[in-house]
């Protein structure tokens, strides 16, 4: 990707005068979403418009009459953020062509609920049509806003309120969907994963996504102390462990070419990551070892798949 202004260190991140998310929102203490939003809004130049699916980010930042967004922000419904973004992008294209209005950067935020499950069709259509926007899925791995119910993004073995760690069925039995693979299958130019523990990487990926003339998808792991039952202070540490244990590989796909951004040669044991979260506590019990093994297999096989893709 040419001519993209990438940064090298945290100091290069624009300062407070570029802050476009204001405090006073009702996100949980220690929420892993808003710090990412702050970085995204600084990485993308003005003018910009944000479209947000129903979910934690939307609800907590826009309780009438309080709003934390310093830029134009639109919420339509749960499963149509990508479609709404398509409409805004198409309208500005027409207004630009017919009336000379300036084209803004279009950013769409959706949770794993609004992206993986109910919003998948809308995202798929938008990707196929090639609208020029960045789609950022902030994945806290369950429908957190409505009370921690499982989603297609919930990892295998995790306990949620609709996949509880019960006596007969100990947690979610199904594996996690891969959003980047789905996005790449649409033939888009750029898709990447991101983690809060690697802010410069995240910032640069947003810049790269913005540079694409067409759709780009960012899949961001949002640590959720409330839903994951973790200590709010450990949000960044958990986001780092996710990467270091290979549970959350940091990689990007540019025009079909895979690149692992942070190659984990000697992964930390997965238990280090799991033991900090109440939602996985039952997995560390001996009677659930079989499920833990399956989760480890998921992680290993996906990592191997990624490595083989980088060698293509």
């Amino acid at each position, binding site marked *: 990707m040419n001519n993209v202004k990438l940064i090298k260190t945290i100091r290069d991140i624009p300062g407070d005068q570029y802050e476009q998310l204001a405090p006073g929102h009702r996100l949980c203490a220690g929420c892993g979403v808003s710090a990412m939003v702050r970085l995204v809004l600084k990485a993308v130049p003005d003018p910009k418009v944000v479209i947000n699916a129903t979910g934690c980010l939307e609800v907590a930042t826009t*309780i009438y009459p309080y709003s934390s967004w310093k830029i134009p922000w639109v919420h*339509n419904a749960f499963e149509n953020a990508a479609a709404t973004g*398509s*409409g*805004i992008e198409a*309208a500005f294209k027409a207004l630009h062509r017919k009336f000379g209005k300036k084209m803004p950067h279009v950013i769409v935020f959706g949770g794993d609920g609004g992206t993986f499950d109910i919003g998948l069709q809308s995202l798929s259509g938008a990707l196929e049509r090639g609208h020029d926007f960045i789609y950022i899925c902030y994945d806290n791995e369950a429908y957190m806003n409505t009370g921690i119910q499982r989603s297609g993004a919930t990892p295998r073995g995790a306990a949620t309120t609709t996949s509880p760690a019960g006596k007969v069925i100990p947690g979610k039995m199904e594996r996690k969907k891969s959003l980047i693979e789905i996005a790449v299958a649409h033939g888009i130019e750029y898709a990447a994963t991101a983690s809060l523990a690697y802010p410069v990487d995240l910032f640069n990926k947003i810049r790269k996504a913005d540079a694409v003339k067409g759709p780009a998808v960012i899949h961001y792991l949002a640590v959720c102390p409330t839903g994951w039952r973790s200590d709010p202070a450990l949000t960044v540490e958990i986001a780092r462990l996710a990467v270091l244990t290979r549970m959350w590989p940091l990689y990007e796909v540019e025009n079909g070419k895979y690149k692992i951004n942070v190659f984990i040669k000697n992964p930390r044991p997965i238990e280090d990551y799991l033991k900090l979260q109440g939602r996985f506590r039952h997995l560390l019990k001996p009677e659930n070892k079989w499920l833990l093994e399956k989760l480890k297999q998921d992680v290993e096989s996906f990592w191997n798949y990624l490595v083989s893709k980088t060698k293509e």
Partner: protein
Amino acid sequence: MRMYVQPKLLLWLGRVNDMVKRIGLNGDEAVALAVKQANVDVIAAYPITPQTIIVERLSEYVNNGELDAEFVPVESEHSALSTVVGAALTGARVFTATASQGLALMYEILWIASSLRLPIVMALANRAFSAPINIHCSHDDAMAARDAGWIELFSESVQEVYDLTLQAFMMVEDENIMLPAIVNLDGFILSHSLADLYVFDDQEVTNLLRKDRPLYKLPIDFKKPATYGPLGLYDYYMEIKKQQAVAMRNAYKYIKEVFQKYSEVSGREYSPVKTYEVEDAEIVVIALGSMAGNLRTIAKSLRKRGKKVGVISLTLYRPFPEDIILKTLKDINVVVVMDRFPNFGAPGGPLFEDISATLYHLKKRPMLLNVIYGLGGRETSPKEIENIFERALKISKEGVMEEKEIWVGVRE
């Protein structure tokens, strides 16, 4: 009484010859032509019988360079209306069209569009709801949408389809109205039937509609950013809804002004309610959509035989023209309300309920008979229509009504 103003009469009134064109189109094509002439900016629609011709024609116009618009080939009706909502927020002129199941699929967004007071025009080719799946005309979809806060217009002919589509743009973009509008056209009966109609020149439509953008009162503005679609909890939701409800009531006055202006410019008269021979009528039959024309034809022949019958049809269905209905019906003996919608457990069909509620407070009220007809494209024959009039006359004479609801045209 409605008037068609013939071209010769217009010439006599001093209008230019080539500004009045008479051509043959079907209802769908008439919608597409009106939308093209309106110079929309964004179209997002998903094909569904019997609206497909609208979508096809519009994409032809765009791909041939006749219409400079973004045609967004969305992957479902839900996305169609969502896309159009996003586009309308920028202040662009937008359009979508659907029918039946498509309307049902986009239903949740209907409420959002009207709540945000967006200038959206939607053509609805009225088609029955499944199951069983049926592609022909019922008013199921129009009635499903009636409570969602949209202006609802019903066309009776292909001419009206064209005219009402243009008037819909005038209404939604009026700063005193600011509500989205649905233009109903009976599926297949109007959408696919070729008829003659008078159309404007492109320039005349350009002059009729607003030329500026943004068309929305609070458009996305980078110098004055705003937050659209927030969470409105129990401390604010009701106020926001009340404002919307009052806006719908107040819109009535301005909608009538749009009808008035359009009548002057086109020479074809439009108003919320069309009445035929009601002044001294004993009984009146009311219907929405294409049935109205059939009713008038039968009524005309009955009048020739001295029967005192009248016909009403509503061009404007939402906001409901209560004042005109009250004035017109208060002294009638028997009113037959025809609903092209199955009644499942309600006190009457939707139009029957609207009429009943409107007439309720009168000291002396007409007797009301509800007729369910035409479901899923079932034809109502002239004989069956005549029987309805006769039945009403009988009720009027005897002062007694056996059943308050009858289904016409169904095999026992």
